[in-house]
């Protein structure tokens, strides 16, 4: 009797200790996706009225994506006053796709890259600035502050 209780005790504890956590790479045992990854490259500073080139480098499964199903760029201004149609990007090879653009008005802009390859569809968007920001745009940027921070301040 005592012996069997001892054995069951050991078994119980080994079960308790052994089973609690998940293996790190456990997701590999189940269905996996190969998401398209993108790096949107915008020149450090862009001036209005100048031809600028925006690039995106696409990788998937650790390899550069050659001949993606589609890569399109969409650019618009934050206040809605400027909006370009979606445009096909040029395939430069080695996973790089680019678009040259001349924008007249200064301010806060967005670019959205629509890309797809091997069943993965992405639409990353990036915020960028041409020239100087207007007062309204600065106000808009400040409004986007995280809610958690706001509520902390209100507790006083």
């Amino acid at each position, binding site marked *: 009797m005592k012996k069997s209780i001892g054995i069951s005790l050991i078994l119980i504890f080994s079960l308790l200790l052994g*089973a609690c956590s998940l293996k790190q790479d456990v997701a590999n045992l189940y269905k996996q996706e190969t*998401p398209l990854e993108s790096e949107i490259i915008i020149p450090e500073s862009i001036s209005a009225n100048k031809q600028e080139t925006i690039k995106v480098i696409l990788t998937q499964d650790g390899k550069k994506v050659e001949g993606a199903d589609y890569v399109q760029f969409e650019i618009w201004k934050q206040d809605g006053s400027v909006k370009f149609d979606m445009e096909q990007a040029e395939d430069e090879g080695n996973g790089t796709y680019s678009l040259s653009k001349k924008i007249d008005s200064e301010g806060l802009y967005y670019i959205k890259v629509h890309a797809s390859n091997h069943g*993965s569809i992405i639409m990353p*968007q990036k*915020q960028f600035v041409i020239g100087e920001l207007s007062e309204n745009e600065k106000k808009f*940027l400040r409004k986007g502050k995280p809610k958690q921070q706001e509520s902390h301040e209100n507790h006083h």
Partner: protein
Amino acid sequence: MWRWHLYAGIIFAPFLFILAVTGSIYLFKPQIEQMIYQDYYEVTPQGEKVAASAQIEEVKNLYPDAIINKYRPGENTMRSSEVSITANDESLTIFIDPYTGEFIGEQNSKDKIMNKIEEIHGELMAGTLGDRIVELAACWAVVLIVTGLYLWFPKKNQRLSGVLYPRFNKGKKILRRDLHAVPAFWVTAGMLFLIMTGLPWSGFWGSNFQSIATNSGAGYPPSIWSGDAPTSIIKTKDIAEVPWAAENLDVPLSKIQGYIPLPIDDVVAIANREGLHPSYTVSIPQDTVGVYTLSAYPPKAQDEVTMHIDQYSGAVLADYRYQNYGLVGKSVAWGITLHKGTQFGLINQLVSLLICLGIILVTVSGFYLWWKRKPKKGSGAPKAPSLKKMKFFLVLLIGLGILFPLVGLSLIVVWLIDWLIIQRIAVVKKFLNA
């Protein structure tokens, strides 16, 4: 055998009774909630729906300090959309008419009657301790079933009366016994099923079981029950900084230039593109590395889905449907929908209700049986037989103790109490007939 059945019965019958009663009510949650919250749930379809982002904006206007946690678009054209928020440490659900974008109502989740019922059913309103007690009661119910079946099993050439149907004309004593043993036999399979399908949700046995299953590749994929969701694949340094800390906008331009999270409207579009069950909920990422998690647990197990979407690129990082579950995961998923009575709709609910009513009858009649039979003095337990005659039973108990460590643990406690107290104090020993 009788001894164990008696003790375990007296201790755990009240819990099983509570579980059966709350379970009977919880089974009808869809109908009950549809009735109580009809004004919140139902909307009149008119024209196009307002964008999800506009609906959330409305909630932000009404609750400026709240954290937005979830958005649920509503599974059909007549259903309102829901925005789950945390405001002043309360979790609220805000109902919005998706056609007008207007506020319908607010619901505090701690006021929801079904949440209370669920809390009693799952943890007796006593947190982790309650969860463990429920789990223990469920495991010991298995012991009760096994010992009960042994006691019920017809001896010699007994007829079917008193086995499959009760004997009404053999006096009160026999009728009392039959009113416990016969219905108990009939609900055995159903009860065992409810226990086995309920256990995977339990805090201790359940979470360990799920982890073992997931680790073996046969369970749920990670992040559905246990394990973390994947994180965004965008590098943190490439994310646009929000200049909230600065009174003046002195954050360098290069920090403002960067990836920004996708608007929720894109996430809804992705959900439509990927063909999610319309009852899905979007969990909104709360930090810079989080993901949008779309999940749906509809009535039928085979419609379940959990999908993680990169909050910056919209890339589907993981897409787990029922078909992607391992064999154990599939069984558990079916077990859950059957246990909740949703898998086969009304028929499922009625069958489960019948089992619950059976359990109520059996716990009450069992208690009554003991109450009537026990002598004025003493517990009425039969004399403890020597352990040597009970080899089979001992093996069974140890087996159950290993399979359900909580049973094993409680067995050790019982054995210690027996050894340290009962066997040493004459009065107790006599009372329990040990």
